[in-house]
């Protein structure tokens, strides 16, 4: 099938629907219907019921903990992801291919396994965990830092992978020109490279944020899950489901969903605006 054939086919009504109907039906069945069920369930007791459920102190604390740990992770991920992508694209070194492959690994490790690995590494019974706790007073596992570390691990690829292609397409001559004009590397990076990378950086970061807000598997292992202290929203939702508080579960889920949708739409908007500007 060549390009002209596809383009020609677009004009006829039949083949127009040939692809659209199954695709739209698929999205509706797999994504939209489950979402509608949650929305309907969340509003079962009306808006006031929903607000009551998310303002229960334990739920409220869980939501805030989820949001601030995800935000902190996003900040770190943005900076370190940018640095990683830059190094992977601009520099040559032994083991580069391997490192490049490892970047995607967190996506294919079950997050539960991630949690277990982190407990073994930083847990109070490990040498490193005991050292950090006793000498520096920093508890990682069963405390909020553990949540941030787990989220960093699972969402690491998002920033790197959105920046990499843009950086590869970025004309190296611009950087070289700046350098020949006497600009220091940091200055060149800040004034020449960063402005171009800012949109993919933002959208990659927001993507990792929305991924982190819903994380359950790794967090439930590392967090400690004490209500009002280390229990995140996703873990709270499980508790609500298990203890027959389905309304509470739906209400908090709905809030997380709304946040994720807003964040993803912002990410898409940024990406789109950037593409438009780029085309002109």
């Amino acid at each position, binding site marked *: 099938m060549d390009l002209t054939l596809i383009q020609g086919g677009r004009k006829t009504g039949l083949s127009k629907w040939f692809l659209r109907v199954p695709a739209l039906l698929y999205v*509706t*069945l797999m994504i939209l*219907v489950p979402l*509608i069920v949650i929305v309907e369930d969340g509003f079962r007791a009306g808006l006031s019921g929903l607000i009551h459920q998310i303002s*229960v*102190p*334990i739920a409220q604390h869980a939501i805030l903990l989820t949001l601030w740990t995800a935000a902190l992770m996003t900040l770190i991920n943005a900076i370190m992801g940018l640095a990683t992508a830059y190094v992977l694209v601009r520099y040559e070194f032994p083991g580069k291919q391997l490192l490049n492959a490892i970047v995607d690994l967190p996506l294919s490790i079950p997050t539960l396994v991630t949690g277990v690995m982190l*407990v*073994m590494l930083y*847990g*109070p*019974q490990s040498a490193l965990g005991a050292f950090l706790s006793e000498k520096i007073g920093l508890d990682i596992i*069963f405390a909020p830092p553990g949540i941030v570390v787990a989220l960093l691990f699972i969402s690491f690829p998002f920033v790197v992978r959105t920046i990499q292609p843009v950086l590869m397409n970025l004309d190296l001559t611009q950087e070289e020109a700046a350098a020949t004009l006497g600009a220091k590397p940091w200055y060149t990076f800040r004034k020449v490279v960063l402005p171009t990378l800012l949109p993919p950086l933002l959208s990659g970061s927001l993507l990792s944020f929305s991924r982190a807000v819903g994380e359950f598997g790794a967090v*439930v292992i590392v967090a*400690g*899950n*004490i*209500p*009002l*202290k280390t*229990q995140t929203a996703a*873990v709270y939702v*499980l*508790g*609500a489901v*298990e*203890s027959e*508080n389905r309304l509470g579960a739906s209400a908090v889920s709905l809030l997380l969903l709304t946040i994720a949708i807003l964040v993803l739409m912002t990410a898409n908007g940024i990406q789109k605006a950037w593409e438009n500007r780029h085309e002109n």
Partner: protein
Amino acid sequence: MKSKIRILVLLALIAATLAACSPATEQPSGDQVSLILAAYTTPREAYGEIIPLFQTYWLEKTGQDVTFEESYLGSGAQSRAVVEGFEADVVALSLEADVNRIQQAGLITHDWKTVENQGVVTTSIVSLAVREVNPKGISDWADLTQPGLEILTPNPNTSGGAMWNVLAIYGTALRGEIEGVPGDDPDAAFTFLTQVLQNVSVMDKAARDSILNFEMGIGDLAITYENEILVGQQSGQTYERVIPSSTILIQNPVALVDASVEKHGTREVAEAFVEFLFTSEAQEIFAQHGLRVVNQEIAAQTESEYPPVGDLFTVEYFGGWDVIMDEIFGENGIYNLAIATAQGDAH
């Protein structure tokens, strides 16, 4: 309105597809019958040994070959699965409230407590697991409030086991069995529960996860079922069991699900299986897997392994599960208040 119809059509489509995929209900033929057992996870190994015995027994008695489909999940999740359509013929759960849920859904229509021992097939007690040689010197509940002690107990919202733990702490305090805590004083018992909760460092989602974390070296003490400790010791773990002077008796019910046995035509064999669980043969196997049994003869034989508790109480002390679910684990129940107080003070 239109969108609602559309969703309904879609759901109908999905249902039709699923129905087309699943095999038609199997009616038992003359020499072949199948039972679905839905159980909580603790007695998995015991059932693995009991089921072959029952199969032999049933074959000899009736000439019928009985095959089993076994499912093991957390008690609450298992109970909800049955309510939502998992057609288990027999359920074996960790607490009565989970059987009551199935009954309230209309799937159990007979009085399931009319079988032997009111349907309670095994018991256990809430105990304490401490490190080898008991370095923190834990001998009873009162020691759990010592500053800096790290306690593991699962989350009562997700774990039936954790509910027993909270009931054991609160109940013992209320009964005046804890040194320094006046009896019949709800405020004093509440304060004691709060003090213990302040020392809880990890709340896992299930009792099993909690003891696994303890085995990984986390925490000084785990509040758990006695059978978890005994099974762990059998597999080479070095932690020790501390039996408190007062604790709650955990009662694990078993029940036949009328809706399922009617549909599958398995009532006779399901009833026989439930009865079989109370025989000396089956009870002996439960006892080998750390559970306290209800069969008097086997209980007497295994008494050295399962020392009696000074003050043992049951859920009836609180007025039964309905009262407990409302007053202790309800939205504004004692447990939620205690957690809030414990964390409020910790800030």
